[in-house]
């Protein structure tokens, strides 16, 4: 099982890329996914813990209880600055 990760704006620079694939051990919660992400991308750990980024699953905002499934697109969204 795998999910597609997307990084926007300043996160692209921090991570060094816009997209990545991540193997997951089966259907897991967003909370569990965040734990994996923080290990794989330590540079995101602080932002995730301090809620400095929002997370979406398949183009919709998602909370920690959301179930992540195979093929989902999970995006990390720094504070918006449109308008």
């Amino acid at each position: 099982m795998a999910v597609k990760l997307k990084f926007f704006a300043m996160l692209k620079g921090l991570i060094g890329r816009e997209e990545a694939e991540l193997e997951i051990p089966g259907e897991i919660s967003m909370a569990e996914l965040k734990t994996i992400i923080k290990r794989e991308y330590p540079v995101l750990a602080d932002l995730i813990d301090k809620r400095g980024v929002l997370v979406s699953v398949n183009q919709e905002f998602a909370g920690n209880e959301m179930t992540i499934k195979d093929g989902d697109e999970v995006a990390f969204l720094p504070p918006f600055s449109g308008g």
Partner: protein
Amino acid sequence: MAGLVRIQSEDFSVEEEVKRIKTVSKEVGGVVSFLGTARNISKGEKIVSLEFEHYPVMAEKKLDEIRKRALDNFNIIEMGIVHRVGRLDIGENIVLIVAAARHRNDAFMACEWAIAELKRVVPIWKKETTGKGEVWVEEHP
């Protein structure tokens, strides 16, 4: 014809967007528009240019939701939203929100709410280029 809610790199015509919204009904009595433009100064820094990035599909969906919620929650007849992405020079148009209502107060309220909501929930990001380099703006740190 282009939709009432769009993200695009090309500039838009204020005249056309206003006309499209005001002509949806003969009951329209007031049309309030907000046009956001690229300022030359931000937090004391002189800006050379801007670049907007968006999350495709999700940004359009969130803009569409703003229009629908505006129609549900305010006494307006129609709303249009256009946001540009890509590189913009100083003075260029960034975003236009047009709200048409029978009475002006409803149009003012809906337009003001929509631009605040856009900044809050739509995945669009602004990068400013100054003499010191490029920086992604965090309006709500």
